[in-house]
């Protein structure tokens, strides 16, 4: 399984905090995004930061996700 987490304004727009997707070999975080973007377009409008297992990733990071990975789609931070 792949766990997808949403926080703050992204969670509010997605109307959920967690989604689980079936794992398949070769799945990349970009594939997860493409799948979820169509389901939650309003949430993904404000997504600008992505983390896989607690590490920020970018478009250049194309490694396959391991089974059990945690993928988080986040909006710009506003702490402090």
């Amino acid at each position, binding site marked *: 399984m792949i766990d997808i*987490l949403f*926080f*703050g*304004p992204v969670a*509010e727009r997605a109307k959920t905090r967690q989604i689980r997707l079936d794992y398949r070999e070769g799945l990349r975080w970009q594939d997860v995004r493409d799948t979820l973007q169509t389901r939650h377009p309003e949430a993904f409008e404000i997504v600008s*930061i992505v*983390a896989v297992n*607690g590490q920020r990733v970018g478009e250049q990071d194309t490694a396959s996700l391991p089974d059990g990975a945690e993928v*988080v789609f*986040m*909006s*710009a*931070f*506003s*702490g*402090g």
Partner: protein
Amino acid sequence: MNPLTNDAVRLQLEDFSLDAEVSALRAHSKRIGGIATFLGCTRDFSEARAVREITFEAYHAMALAELINLREEAMLRFGLIDARIIHRLGTVQAGENIVLIVAGAEHRAPAFDACRWLIDELKARAPIWKKEITPQGESWVTPHP
């Protein structure tokens, strides 16, 4: 110990004491000659609206890891003797404390510089979001300098 804490770097629901944190830093070493602090507080007015309270939400594991990394980076970058970073989560009433940075160095300049750098980097790197609660409703805050 609260599971979100690791002493010098903490995410916590409850308020903190500036005096207690400065004392803890001073107890670390008598080589400290300058201590700079940044205390972020909840304003009761923002974007032309009254603000009653702010709710903070974090991606806990990553936020805590980022704050620990920030402290370690600041220690090396500015030659600090010690530093403490505390950020509250949950609901914070107007006028209450949000975040505290304490930086201790042999001299004032690196302490001031580290304090400014730490709060700027925290805002950019720690996955924390805030929502303002006003009499007119609630809204997530868009980051600003």
